[in-house]
């Protein structure tokens, strides 16, 4: 579990960095007046002189300076954020168009610490004139002004990634998009002009290049070295940026894997910088239901926004305004609001001023309006949550719960919780032959690395323990182990209890997008910590994550997910959201508790019986030696007593002291639970797929 700790540390240190930079700025203006107080001789500057340097700040300039707000604080995170923004956009586009998404992610090292990242989808493609704006202008997009469940929200992400790339490497963003197999594909090389927040097109004399369809186009693509996987339609963006490639926690691989859990309808192809190819095939053949766009709910609107809406609205009556611009407002409701605010229902909204807006706002808060429609949200569904978890997280027990939709600040949202409980660790289930095979095929440099990468959920601490137990040297290469050492490693894996001290792992999702950073700032983590897990059979010290081989997945789906920052790393703490998360956690917790208690009980019972039976033979033969009683007969009688004793001890008594019949031996946990045999779980071990060339060579 050292890994989660590491994660926490990292996320804790991030905001601190942000604060520091802010603080540094502040003292400067403050010190000016105090300095002038002390020395009234001469002003350092005049209002006129200062006015000369006061000017507009473009969005792109702001974010170029404050890129940590968007998730570009370090090279490692920059790589992930770039992939993440592009994949999220692709998925949104495909789903909106009704296409089953297929995504290609290629990361290629270029020079030094630079990487070329290419992300392609099979989406509907982008119109020629929109391409530069979408990729070369911050805060340009379709998702900000509507209320609809989607991954992207602001229209910052991908253009910011491009901007980061340009800033760190000077290489333009390359986009190729095709809307039909018969129409030409558009190819652009773009740089963002940070001063103006405008795209600057570099190729085709500032106009981009059209690549004709068919063989001619294919030849052109070939000739100019444009990267493109042949598709009838789709978009590919290639960004070269300064980055650092890592594996494990907070990596691109982890992000894609978690994306696959929450999006079983997506096919993913991923080639990492070391040329390993990973494929996540879709397990669901149909798209999730299309989320509906909804109008804002009166409760979710702030005064400023209301005033702005009134101002921007076409001329219409107040009643009509409320009925058409908001959800859940009927004409009676509109009348009630207008009456309460002493505004005529017939008055023209263009003539309403700030005071009216204020009164209307106050009345809205006091009027009882039915909550917004919640059918606009598409949860993953308990079934697919179970499926996704089972495919990726090793374990023996899975449970899922989808809460009914709820509302915070007028925005509908829905919480889903999945839980995977893994009994014995994957290291203990492995056979010696399989271990030898794994050791053969691994490319890791040390045994420790081998253990961490091969066995899912094994932390650095546990790997260290294993290496120590096997009496291996820390820097030994797994491929070069002596047969004796291999055997020792195998023995150690059987012996060491790696689950000891293991903590619950929490996978967080917002609108099917995995959240990998800022764990401790997130409402999900805080609610998990605030829930008492001891009642569900897990041990937990005060204010800490529960212990045990448990993975938890929490998904919040909403038309507007309240993130704590633009980098979309943590969910804000709304009491309504926390309550729903808690209820979801309790739902899966109860099922886990039932399962664990039953398992414990069965084990205790069989243990007890076994111990008694073991001694009964000794007792009966000793007794028969003393008094000549028939040994066999006595033994059988004692066995009968033993059976009765053990069942009696396990029997529950009702409040009158009479035994309650145990209803049904089968454990009935409901539908949304999956129990598997952990020893045959294929997700427990990561195997390196042999590259096709190697196979050919063998033949």
């Amino acid at each position, binding site marked *: 579990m050292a890994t989660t700790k590491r994660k926490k540390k990292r996320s804790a240190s991030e905001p601190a960095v942000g604060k520091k930079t802010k603080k540094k700025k502040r003292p400067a203006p403050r010190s000016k007046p105090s300095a002038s107080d002390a020395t009234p001789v001469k002003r350092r500057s005049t209002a006129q002189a200062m006015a000369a340097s006061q000017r507009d700040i473009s969005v792109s300039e702001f974010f170029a300076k404050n890129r940590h707000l968007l998730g570009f604080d370090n090279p490692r995170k920059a790589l992930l954020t770039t992939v993440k923004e592009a994949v999220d956009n692709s998925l949104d586009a495909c789903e909106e168009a009704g296409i089953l998404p297929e995504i290609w992610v290629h990361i290629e090292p270029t020079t030094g610490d630079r990487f070329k990242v290419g992300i392609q989808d099979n989406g509907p493609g982008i119109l020629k004139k929109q391409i530069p704006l979408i990729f070369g202008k911050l805060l340009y997009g379709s998702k900000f002004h509507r209320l609809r469940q989607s991954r992207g929200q602001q229209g910052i992400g991908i253009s910011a990634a491009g901007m980061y790339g340009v800033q760190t490497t000077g290489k333009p963003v390359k986009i190729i998009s095709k809307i039909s197999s018969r129409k030409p594909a558009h190819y652009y090389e773009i740089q963002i002009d940070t001063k103006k927040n405008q795209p600057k097109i570099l190729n085709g004399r500032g106009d981009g290049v059209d690549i004709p369809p068919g063989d001619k186009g294919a030849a052109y693509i070939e000739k100019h070295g444009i990267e493109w996987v042949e598709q009838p339609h789709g978009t590919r963006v290639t960004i070269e940026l300064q980055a650092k490639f890592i594996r494990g926690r907070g990596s691109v691989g982890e992000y894609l894997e978690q994306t696959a859990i929450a999006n079983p309808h997506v096919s993913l192809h991923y080639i990492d910088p070391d040329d390993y190819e990973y494929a996540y095939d879709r397990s669901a053949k149909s798209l999730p239901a299309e989320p509906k766009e909804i109008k804002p709910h009166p409760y979710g609107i702030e005064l400023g926004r209301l005033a702005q809406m009134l101002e921007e609205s076409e001329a219409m009556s107040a009643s009509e305004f409320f009925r058409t611009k908001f959800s859940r407002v009927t004409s009676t409701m509109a009348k009630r609001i207008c009456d309460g605010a002493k505004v005529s229902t017939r008055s023209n909204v263009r003539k309403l001023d700030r005071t009216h807006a204020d009164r209307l706002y106050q009345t809205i808060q006091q009027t009882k309006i039915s909550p917004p429609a919640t059918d606009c949200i598409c949860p993953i569904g308990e079934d697919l949550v179970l499926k996704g978890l089972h495919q990726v997280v090793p374990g023996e027990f899975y449970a899922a719960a989808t809460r009914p939709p709820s509302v915070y600040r007028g925005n509908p949202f829905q919480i889903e919780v999945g839980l995977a409980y893994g009994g014995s660790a994957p290291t203990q289930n492995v056979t010696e032959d399989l271990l030898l095979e794994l050791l053969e095929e691994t490319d890791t440099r040390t045994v420790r690395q081998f253990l961490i990468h091969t066995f899912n959920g094994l932390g650095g601490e546990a790997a260290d323990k294993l290496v120590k137990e096997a009496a291996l040297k820390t820097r030994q290469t797994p491929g070069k182990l002596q047969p004796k050492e291999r055997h020792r490693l195998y023995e150690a894996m059987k012996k060491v209890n790696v689950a000891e001290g293991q903590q619950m792992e929490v996978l967080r999702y917002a609108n099917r997008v995995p959240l990998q950073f800022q764990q401790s700032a997130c409402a999900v983590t805080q609610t998990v910590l605030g829930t008492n897990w001891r009642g569900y059979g897990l041990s937990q010290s005060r204010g800490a994550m529960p212990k045990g081989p448990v993975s938890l997945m929490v998904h919040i789906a909403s038309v507007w997910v309240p993130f704590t920052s633009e980098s979309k790393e943590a969910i804000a703490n709304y009491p309504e959201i926390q309550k729903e998360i808690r209820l979801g956690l309790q739902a899966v917790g109860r099922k886990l508790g039932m399962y664990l208690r039953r398992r414990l009980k069965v084990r205790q019972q069989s243990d*007890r019986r076994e*111990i*008694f039976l*073991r*001694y009964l*033979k*000794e*007792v009966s*033969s*000793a*007794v*028969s*030696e*003393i*008094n*000549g*009683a028939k040994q066999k007969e*006595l033994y059988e*009688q*004692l066995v*009968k*007593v*033993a059976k*009765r*004793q*053990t069942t009696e001890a396990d029997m529950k008594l009702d409040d009158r002291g009479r035994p309650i019949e145990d209803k049904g031996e089968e454990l009935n946990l409901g539908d949304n639970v999956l129990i598997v045999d952990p020893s045959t779980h294929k997700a427990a071990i990561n195997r390196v797929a042999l590259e096709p060339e190697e196979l050919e060579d063998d033949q």
Partner: protein
Amino acid sequence: MAKKRPVATARKPKVKLSPRDKKTMARLTDVADRVVRAAKARRDPHVDIPSRTLSNVHYSARKKIIEMGNNKNRRKLFDLSQAKAYMRTVLVSSGCKRLLDQGKTTSLRGMYYMLKHTIEGSRENTFDTQNESDTIIEDVEVMLGSLREELHLYAQKKGDLVGNITINDSGFDIDCSRMGSGGYGIPSIVEPEVIKLDRKKCHAKFVLHVEKDTVWQRFNEDRFWEKHNCILTHGGGQPTRGIRRLLHRLHNELKLPIYCVLDNDPWGYYIYSVIKQGSINLAFESQRMAVPEAKFLGLRSIDYDRCELSDDVILAMNDNDRKRAKQIANYPWFAKKRPWQSEIQRMLKNDFKLEVESLISKDISYVTEVYVPERLSARDWLD
């Protein structure tokens, strides 16, 4: 003895049981019969074993010995924590029965080997160490109310005797004044069936019991027993039951007073306490072992000053010693004795221990020629 194992009788020659053995055998059979009865009635078989702890002993001020109380621990077969102990108890009982049947005696270790085997269908042993079987044997003793000798068991021989007495051991007359430097090894079983004492064959006037072999050697080499006409014994530390039983018999049957020369430390005090009023663990045997009239001759805490010993021979006390000393001071049989309280307090104040051997710093034979004769003639002892 209505039921007897047919196989055993057929193979082994039948041994005639002494009346005492018959009594023991009846008790053993009773234990087994209870198991059978319980199993037939589908009940949980159990045995009740008097508890052998400080809480279940009391000091009888009248008899001046430690006696066992009536607290009993129930040991059940169908209780997870007791199942193994129950099995062992029955196993030891069957081992004793086998010994009785064949008219043989064996050592505690022999018993351990007789019963030690792997339980069928597991990797578990009935007993892993001798300590485990020894405690169960003590349990069986108290459970049956039979003595170890009656179960045909004996312990390792410990302790020697020399002096003006002739003992009949298993039909051999043994003149204990002619034992040379080795002495007569006191057997584990010293019951009248084995060792016969005759008042006419005893010329000694008292018994001097010393703590360990080395001191006893000194006394024997200096022929102390000859000069002072006494019997000289040692127990090699904490005296075993055989030694205590012999002291008891020498005292009660031959009317010899017992004097003890022990180290001046908590363990020495406790050895004296065990000789005098019995031990907590074997409180059920106090009656036939304790010698309430035994006297504590030395070493005393005042001896450092009285004998003008040098600082070189003192041993520092540790926390454990201090704790034990306070514990002993609180035992009811010491609590009301002023001289003993001041003795223990004095030792705690000294904050050091003295061994009998420390007197050698005065002179090699100081203890035999000066120290003990002086104490005896001055009748200077603790009671």
